[in-house]
């Protein structure tokens, strides 16, 4: 029991993910700055931002909205992110095998942060937040089917096992799934799903600073916003780690493999950052069409290819 709590709160759950996520967020901002020929923020910037919001700023509650829901939504999102990190990382680094069917549970838990953004935005009683929430909802509807299909394809590849631990075992035996044509197609679709899940450009219409002023988060300030930032840092690490686990052969931490693990996750982060810096924001209907038609077709093609063992 105490050990489980330790897993949840410190390693590899809340604290570890938050630290690594903050560093990832710095890398993201720094690479963005390089792409734009700027210098970029100092290394500890994400920590300064977080502690400033948490310790210094006042938290303003909406006058015309549900105050309790408004405050509890970020907390729930943070809990969800910590839970997802624990469930993904424990089997991924091989500390403890998960339970049967954990990949399905992870699929649901990974939607919790996005759902809490919607709940919080709707509780804020701000019209722009409502616009952001409705866009976020449409985005979830569009990418979630693709995401589920990707997981289905991975489960098929692993010989119908729904445990991360066994999926990893299959990959250790037969090489990582990305080493086939279907694997590469799945990787591409997965990267776009991550992009949408994290709300990065080109799928940041729920936040759209220049258009609806941070959309879903417009009313958040102080501690509540600090928690949202933390959730976003954590998701920035968890999702690439999940991709690594299911397609790139896991996150092994012994010896030289540790270096590979770090390089793999950083590589995915770099891809995400470059996509976000070289694309404009698309409209919500374009995003829906992109996922519903093109990404789903891509994944179905991967499934068919996989059927022929390609």
């Amino acid at each position: 029991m105490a050990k489980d709590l330790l897993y949840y709160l410190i390693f590899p759950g809340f604290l570890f993910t938050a630290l690594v996520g903050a560093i990832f967020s710095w890398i993201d901002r720094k690479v963005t700055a390089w792409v734009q020929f700027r210098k970029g923020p100092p290394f500890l910037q994400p920590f300064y931002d977080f502690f400033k919001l948490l310790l210094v700023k006042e938290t303003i509650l909406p006058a015309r909205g549900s105050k309790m829901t408004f405050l509890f939504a970020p907390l729930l999102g943070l809990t969800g992110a910590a839970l997802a990190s624990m469930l993904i990382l424990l089997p991924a680094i091989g500390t403890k095998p998960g339970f049967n069917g954990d990949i399905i549970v992870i699929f649901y838990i990974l939607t919790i942060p996005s759902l809490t953004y919607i709940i919080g935005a709707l509780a804020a009683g701000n019209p722009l937040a409502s616009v952001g929430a409705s866009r976020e909802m449409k985005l979830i509807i569009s990418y979630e089917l693709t995401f589920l299909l990707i997981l289905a394809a991975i489960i098929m590849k692993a010989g119908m096992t729904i445990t991360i631990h066994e999926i990893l075992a299959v990959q250790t035996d037969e090489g990582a799934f990305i080493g086939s044509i279907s694997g590469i197609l799945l990787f591409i679709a997965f990267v776009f799903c991550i992009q949408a899940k994290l709300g990065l450009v080109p799928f940041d219409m729920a936040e759209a600073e220049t258009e609806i002023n941070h959309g879903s988060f417009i009313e958040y300030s102080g501690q509540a916003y600090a928690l949202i930032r933390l959730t976003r840092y954590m998701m920035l690490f968890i999702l690439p780690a999940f991709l690594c686990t299911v397609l790139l052969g896991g996150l092994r931490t012994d010896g030289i493999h540790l270096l590979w693990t770090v390089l793999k996750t950083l590589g995915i982060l770099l891809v995400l950052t470059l996509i976000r810096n070289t694309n404009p924001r698309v409209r919500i209907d374009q995003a829906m069409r992109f996922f519903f038609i093109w990404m789903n077709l891509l994944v179905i093609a991967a499934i068919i290819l996989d059927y022929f063992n390609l």
Partner: protein
Amino acid sequence: MGFKDYCFRKSLWVFHFGGASCNNCDIEILDCLTPRYDIERFGMVLVGSIRHADVLLVNGSINQKDKIRLLELYSQAPKPILVVAIGACGCTGGIFAEGNTFAGPVDKIIPVDAYVPGCPPKPEAIIGGIVRLIEKTKKATRDEAT
């Protein structure tokens, strides 16, 4: 100097309020974000919602209608909030000071922490003004401590 103030100083998020400006100061403020000046080096980012802001940049002359909105923005901002008046218009009224709709300057409406004069001030001057502002908050916390 506490940890809290240190974090605050290292991460000032800026919200830009343009009054009835001639639009020149707005452009100079945007210049601060360009690769050449890049204020993100100091952890400053331009935010779109006043709820996230730590610094309220006010430029342009404030007329009767802006005054209502400026007051509203100031009351909506989470405290502590710092206010910087940019440009001759923001500091004194500049060439608009004699106008019959003029309701400013900014420090008559809300408390101002730093002034950056110039018509328009150069980006260097704006960054200089913000550095002064940071020094001022340092000094204020030192005085509080003693």
